[in-house]
């Protein structure tokens, strides 16, 4: 990818972030945001800008990038354009652990993000162990994911059946968003996301090799099992950290890499970068709309994505079918 393309995408990211920061919704107007940034503004305005709006934008950028790159890593790794963090059971794993945590420490919201993160990562480890026991092929990874994911889901149902008060509103639990974002969750997740994004980007050339299949990749001097495991682990860390911050936002990890692939044909370095930027921009826009359209209430980002995501998936399937000529 050319230097200019990197510059342009960074610029788009910055402009979206600026719009997102400045867009007034009745509480603080654009000029007041400027005042705050320049050190002025009332105490109330400062709280809104520095403790609510900026953490939200940071969270949207970080989780948008994390989920999209996570999807990109999985799709290339497993050579399946319909793969996304959800198929690894990451969402259900995180959901299960948040529920377990809530049963043991109810009303202590502070630790929720750590529980979600642990859930995502531990479930991925379980999948990894199961898959590597069965050859670590792409199919065994996907099937292990489906199996473990179903296991988590049934466990979730058991908990909800036994302790219905744990999840007052199951739909809200599954539709992630940033309305009840706590700055401490951002402080926990962003330090996980940023280094993993950098690592994944540095190791991008081996992802390019891995996508060619086990035989070709092995012949080009890659330890296929080790690298496949590493990228799955990266994907789990990224989406686990994102889920811990914003709850379950499905489809983002599926849509963004596919859209990127439609416009960009090239190696993983560029692909990952574009996923980062467009995932961030996309989630920021969803969040911007979600918090302004029905102010003082909010539409969760997860809802937007589900509305866009399901038809997108159908369209992808049809497109794929056509290309196969079936």
């Amino acid at each position, binding site marked *: 990818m050319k230097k200019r393309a990197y510059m342009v995408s960074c610029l788009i990211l910055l402009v979206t972030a600026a719009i997102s920061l400045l867009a007034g*919704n*009745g*509480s*603080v107007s654009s000029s007041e945001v400027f005042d705050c940034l320049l050190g002025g503004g009332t*105490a*109330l305005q400062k*709280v*809104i800008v520095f*403790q*609510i*709006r900026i953490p939200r934008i940071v969270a949207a950028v970080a989780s948008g990038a994390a989920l999209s790159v996570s999807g990109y890593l999985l799709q290339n790794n497993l050579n399946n354009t319909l793969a996304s963090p959800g198929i690894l059971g990451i969402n259900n794993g995180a959901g299960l652990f*948040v*529920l377990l945590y*809530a*049963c043991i*420490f*109810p*009303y*202590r*919201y*502070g630790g*929720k993000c750590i529980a979600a993160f642990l859930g995502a990562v531990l479930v991925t480890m379980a999948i990894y162990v199961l898959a590597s026991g069965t050859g670590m092929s792409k199919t065994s990874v996907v099937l292990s994911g489906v199996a473990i994911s179903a296991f988590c889901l049934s466990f979730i149902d058991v908990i909800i059946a036994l*302790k219905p*008060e*744990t*999840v*007052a*509103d199951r739909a*809200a*639990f599954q539709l992630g*968003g940033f*309305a*009840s*974002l*706590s*700055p*401490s969750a951002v402080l926990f997740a962003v330090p996980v996301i940023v280094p993993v994004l950098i690592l994944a980007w540095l190791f991008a050339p081996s992802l390019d090799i891995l996508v060619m299949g086990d035989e070709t990749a092995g012949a080009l001097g890659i330890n296929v099992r080790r690298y496949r495991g590493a990228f799955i682990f990266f994907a789990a860390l990224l989406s686990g950290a994102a889920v811990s911050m914003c709850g379950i936002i499905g489809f983002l990890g599926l849509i963004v890499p596919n859209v990127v692939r439609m416009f960009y044909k090239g190696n993983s370095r560029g692909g990952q970068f574009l996923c980062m930027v467009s995932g961030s921009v996309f989630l920021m826009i969803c969040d911007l709309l979600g*918090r302004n359209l*029905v*102010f*003082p*209430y*909010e*539409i*969760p980002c997860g809802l937007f994505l589900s509305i866009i995501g399901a038809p997108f998936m159908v369209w992808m399937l049809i497109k794929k079918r056509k290309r196969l000529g079936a």
Partner: protein
Amino acid sequence: MSKKISYVAMVLTFAMLLAGCGKSVSALSEKEQAETGKRVIALSESNAELWILAGGTLVGTSEDALDVEGLNPDAQNLGDMDHVSLEAIAALEPELLILFETDPAQKALGEAAQEIGIPVVFTNIDGYADYEKVMKEFTDLTGREDLYEKNVVQVRDRIDSVVSKVPENAEPKTYLLLHVSATKSKAEKNDYFASEIFNNLGLENIALDESAFNELSMEAIVTADPDYIFVVPRGDETKARESFGEIFESDSAWQSLSAVKNGRYILLDKDLFGLKPNDHWGEAYEEAYKIVYGVE
């Protein structure tokens, strides 16, 4: 063979129809039934309590209602309130089934029960007025006007006396009412019964909007800066009490609110403000008054 089956089926259907007719007819003569003790099933704690407050007894109820005060010990446990089998209900030969209108599982159960001829009453209590209406209906059925006097008229008097103490022309204070579960908190709007209590005491809910959406924006909360934050726990109350405050103390945006700074965030009693208080409605008003105005 198939002829035989259809014959049996016809006889069975006819028998069932007869049985159904029999019950709905017997439900008509209410006065008579009240004296002999009506066979009633109420599902859920709240419904069981209403019927008992009206002086009735129950042949069956759901598991959550088993420790309702005044429940006759021979009432049968029918299990979880949303998963009661129609067969178990029919076996008790009820003459009246009391269910929640707004609970989809109970609504479906009620409709099925009506089809096999069991009379059903659906309750839907959003505020005090609904309580009065249902109690009127129930005490009429049981014929216990004395209990209507005790559990409704006297309660209404207590409420009126609390409301009359509210200082007039005072600057209205604002509040935010959070219903918290173990994983999530939700701002209640004015359709919640406890909001009605605080509104009648001269307070103003910042979650006024009749929006279809439920998630109140944090920016909106900070901008509105309510004078009080009331918290109603769902589920385990003692654990809620233990970790109460962490919700506000762990987050800098919440800390900026004057209600938090002034210590005006209050954990409300779940029995008065989380579940419909029924005959304790007066106490709920008194408690709320004490919280807001500091004196009895």
